[in-house]
């Protein structure tokens, strides 16, 4: 199931925007390296570079097609021809938000380092910019070879950021970070090569193109090994429970901006890897691994939360809270249904915002006092009221208070979890009694929910110890409240937290079609049920009433309709949308389902795609009917979560 490919030229752009986004930072770094000498000039310049990058990345939004799954703004050129490696960049609904998050946090991280970094300023900004390039490259690459190159290259600047500008145990933390990640990724490299070879065997074509591997028929015993190799690579990055030990070290030792990027973006690469690669490439192996994966995710949630509670160091506390939050993301992804995966992706963004914000907040106080120990503080709210307010909002966002972003993400994930029926494959194989199918997912979700409660406990407890009580420590008497630059770094985060918390639909709409596609490939059963419901809802609902579903794409006024000559289209899709028909929704028209899903459903019924049929071996068709009645209310995740 190859999604359609729209190049940047198809989308009405004159220049390759993704390459620009990726290389503007590295060009900036080269300019700094060669031409700039004075520290302040370098600071200004680096800030401008990331700001330009961010503003440019906003250009992705207006032209983005949200009503069907397509790879957009694509750039494709042969690179190493004898190997079949391509220079293939593109974004789709899964990656676009992460890209925006990356450029957004890049601006904040660079801005926040203005006074924090006084030593070896030039090198610092060079590495920050290189890191930005590496991260954007990872999210854009749709060719495995290119992906691996960016995935590894990104390690080097991060290694330097931790190792040079880090805390007392920086050398240990830096090398641990480096080796852990490398160990995971080399195994992934072997798995990539394995896939490459299998694909060559089956088609006779040398290609590293990710989308070509989708729907490949991989024998189960091979699939398991490949899945595990990818799993280790991504799970270390996430980090999932037994692989998380590098994270607290790296976070505690890294400079503030490093922590922000590490928590905000780097960890997301692991979860992104799961959505983009592991799930759709190895659907059967994913099913096989589900019980273990879920268990690890839930252990991560609870363990991370409990450990966070005991930390005397604020940064370490936030680091362990990351383990817990990322456990939620994994839980959502493993739910393998629309809500779960969308919640997971949204929670990636949320975690990037709130944890990034928390690290910034902790960094602000560390810069003033050079300590992060909770016991050194107390009563700060008297001295720094503005700081206290910002800290509070970000804390609450991390806890998941309704009307803030964390709530939406966690709620959607848990919703997906309840519907997931994780133990179904195990039950179907006869390992467990039948009633466990529902009980286990309920149990897992309940355990996960305890993570939210614990999260509230450790965050609020920390906040209370730092902010309230009497201002006793004389060193804290002199503290100054935030200055304008510092407020500027926090305000954008807070705005976004509220925005996602109150009206998440614009964010969710970006990913609808892409997530649907992923779910369809990994777990067709759930996708089918989802589509069926949506259609029923559509039939029952009067036009323009109640629920809102993703409508046609919205082009800016004056934007030419997009023509798609010679693109990959499924047979069914053509009937749903005649070739000449511009896919722009007319006012008054109510296309309730993302166009193309109808076609996918048809295709699924016809059983055309081999890749889709595989999933069926594990789940009885009846699974589709499970829990239909309660789900009617939940059918549309966005309308639903938007109501809260």
């Amino acid at each position, binding site marked *: 199931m190859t999604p359609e490919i729209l190049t940047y030229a198809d989308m009405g752009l004159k220049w390759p925007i993704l390459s620009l986004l990726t290389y503007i930072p590295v060009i900036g770094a080269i300019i700094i390296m060669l031409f700039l000498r004075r520290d302040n000039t370098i600071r200004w310049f680096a800030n401008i570079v990331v700001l330009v990058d961010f503003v440019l990345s906003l250009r992705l939004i207006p032209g983005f097609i949200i009503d069907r799954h397509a790879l957009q703004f694509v750039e494709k050129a042969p690179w190493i021809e004898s190997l079949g490696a391509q220079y293939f960049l593109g974004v789709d609904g899964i990656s676009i938000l992460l890209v925006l998050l990356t450029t957004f946090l890049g601006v904040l991280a660079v801005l926040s380092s203005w006074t924090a970094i006084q030593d070896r300023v030039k090198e610092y900004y060079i590495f920050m910019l290189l890191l930005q390039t590496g991260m954007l490259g990872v999210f854009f690459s749709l060719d495995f070879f290119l992906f691996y190159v960016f995935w590894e290259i990104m390690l080097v600047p991060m290694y330097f950021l931790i190792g040079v500008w880090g805390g007392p145990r920086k050398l240990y933390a830096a*090398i641990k970070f480096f080796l852990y990640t490398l160990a995971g990724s080399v195994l992934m490299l072997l798995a990539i090569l394995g896939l490459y070879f299998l694909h060559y065997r089956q088609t006779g074509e040398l290609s590293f193109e990710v989308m070509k591997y989708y729907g490949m028929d991989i024998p189960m015993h091979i699939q398991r090994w490949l899945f595990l190799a990818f799993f280790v690579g991504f799970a270390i990055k996430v980090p999932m429970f037994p692989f998380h030990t590098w994270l607290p070290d790296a976070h505690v030792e890294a400079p503030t901006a490093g922590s922000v990027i590490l928590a905000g973006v780097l960890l997301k690469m692991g979860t992104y890897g799961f959505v983009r690669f592991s799930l759709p490439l190895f659907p059967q192996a994913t099913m096989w691994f589900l019980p273990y994966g879920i268990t690890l995710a839930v252990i991560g949630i609870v363990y991370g939360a409990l450990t966070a509670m005991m930390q005397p160091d604020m940064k370490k506390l936030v680091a362990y809270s990351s383990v817990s939050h990322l456990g939620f993301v994994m839980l959502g992804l493993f739910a393998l249904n629309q809500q779960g995966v969308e919640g997971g992706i949204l929670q990636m963004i949320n975690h990037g915002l709130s944890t990034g914000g928390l690290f910034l907040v902790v960094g602000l106080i560390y810069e003033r006092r050079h300590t992060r120990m909770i016991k050194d503080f107390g009563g700060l709210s008297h001295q720094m009221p503005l700081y206290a307010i910002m800290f509070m909002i970000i804390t609450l966002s991390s806890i998941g208070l309704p009307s803030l972003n964390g709530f939406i993400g966690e709620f959607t994930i848990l919703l997906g979890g309840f519907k997931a029926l994780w133990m179904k494959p195990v039950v179907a194989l006869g390992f467990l009694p039948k009633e466990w199918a529902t009980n286990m997912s309920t149990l897992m979700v309940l355990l996960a929910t305890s993570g939210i409660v614990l999260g509230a406990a450790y965050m609020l407890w920390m906040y209370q110890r730092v902010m309230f009580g009497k201002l006793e420590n004389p060193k804290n008497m002199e503290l100054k409240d935030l200055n304008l630059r510092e407020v500027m770094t926090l305000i954008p985060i807070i705005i976004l937290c509220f925005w996602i918390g109150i009206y998440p639909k614009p964010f969710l709409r970006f990913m609808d079609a892409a997530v649907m596609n992923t779910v369809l490939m990994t777990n067709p059963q759930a996708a089918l049920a989802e589509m069926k419901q949506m259609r029923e809802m559509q039939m029952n609902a009067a036009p323009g009433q109640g629920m809102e579903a993703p409508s046609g794409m919205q082009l800016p006024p004056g934007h030419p309709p997009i023509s798609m000559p010679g693109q990959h289209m499924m047979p069914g899709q053509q009937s749903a949308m005649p070739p000449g028909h511009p896919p722009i929704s007319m006012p008054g028209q109510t296309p309730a389902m993302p166009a193309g899903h109808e076609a996918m459903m048809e295709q699924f019924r016809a059983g055309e795609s081999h890749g889709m049929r595989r999933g069926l071996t594990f789940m009885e068709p009846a699974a589709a009917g499970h829990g239909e009645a309660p789900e009617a209310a939940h059918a549309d995740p966005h309308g639903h979560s938007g109501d809260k």
Partner: protein
Amino acid sequence: MQIPPIDFTAVYPEVIVALVGLLVLAVDIFIKPQRKTSLSAIALVGLVLAFLTTMLIWDRNETAFSGMVAVDSYAQFFKLIFIFSAALTVLISPRYLSLNNISVGEYLELVLFCTVGMMVMASANDLVTIYIGLELMAISIYLMAGFQRDNPRSCEASMKYFLLGSFASALLLYGMSFFYGITGTTSLQGFTLSPNSNIIDSEVMTRLPLVLMTVGFAFKIAAVPFHMWTPDVYEGAPTPLTAFMSVGPKVAAFAVIMRVYMKTFGALVPDWVQMFTLLSILTMIYGNVVAVAQKSMKRMLAYSSIAHAGYLLIGIVSAGTATEMTGGKAMSATFASESMMSVMVYLFAYMFMNLGTFAVVISLGRADNPRDSLADYAGLAKRRPLTALLMTILLLSLMGFPGTFGFIGKFYIFKAAIVTGNLTLAVVGVLMSVVAAFYYVRVVLYMYMREPEGEVLAEGDAISSTMYAIVVTTMFTLLFGVAPGFIIDMARYTIERMLA
């Protein structure tokens, strides 16, 4: 008896390098001591000429000297590597030689003769030719290793290498004589030329030359357990020579191994695949793990070069396995040539990155103190930012980091292993490259993140021929890391013609 026609054009590069070697020796007598650097210039010009003539005969595909010498692009490919490494060695030497009062003339002459030996090995089509080339190479190196007569370490290195080297040569020769005894010829096509068509199966003795020759070659590539000489010799020898010897003989031995094992011992694949698999695993594990414990850069690089031989052997094993693969003759031929190609690309990459790294080690040395311990690298990034940056890139390349030539080499090697089903080797290989990452990254850590202890030398990125060598190797490492297509196509072209 009729003397066969002698075609000197077939061996132009060898002839030119040998003549230039003699010229250097002659000029050395008449030239004033303070103008000795012009000798390096003569040597470089000679190497450029050799390069040009190599390109002249690039496309020929025949044998010369009654089948003793193969004139094919496979040989020329390796000659290019030797010429590059000799030229880089000439570039990195002057500083070290003047610091340690080593006679430039004799040194350069030996480097050039050694290069001739390696070239002869690469183009050998007969066991006798192989042996001549090998001995010419080895004797030059025995001499060069002991160049610092006053230094006991240097003498020890020379003696050790000489004794163990002769022993290995003897074993190789012993194997060759068995080969002659069985087939009645020393030609590499021996088994096919023999009147007894069933010779492989009928003779138990056919395994004997295989084993003995494998030992001889394993010694030259420093595969575990035939590596014992490596660390001591590398440490004791003059550093530019260490650089040269970590690349040249190894590459030459691999050139011979690929030709001999694929062509001559093609029928004994199952036997030698087993041997090389074992050697490869041992070499990778031992080399990488022991390198972690080293405090001296030279010793660390010695062990790392042992480890690299292990990776290279993966490619050889894959080539062997490929010839046995089911799935059609065309497929197995493709995979075999792909595997060999991966070895050739890796060797090319290895030449650049290893010589570059050694050049950095040399550039740090002082007359009174070689300064090759890890602690000497502390804070290098502040004293010599450019050197530190280039060293970082070279080390990342040795590690096999994407974006560098080293990655391309490793990538193709592992690809070959996966494709031919050598999963164990691939897994051991990647895990060991993580171990390798530790000791390479540790150097980076010292350079950027540690403050030097004791008195700090005032030094900068001085412009010198050593620095040129570092810059050139790094440039190539990056260039071919991003755009490797050219080298890959070249290697593939040559290997396909050789195997055809």
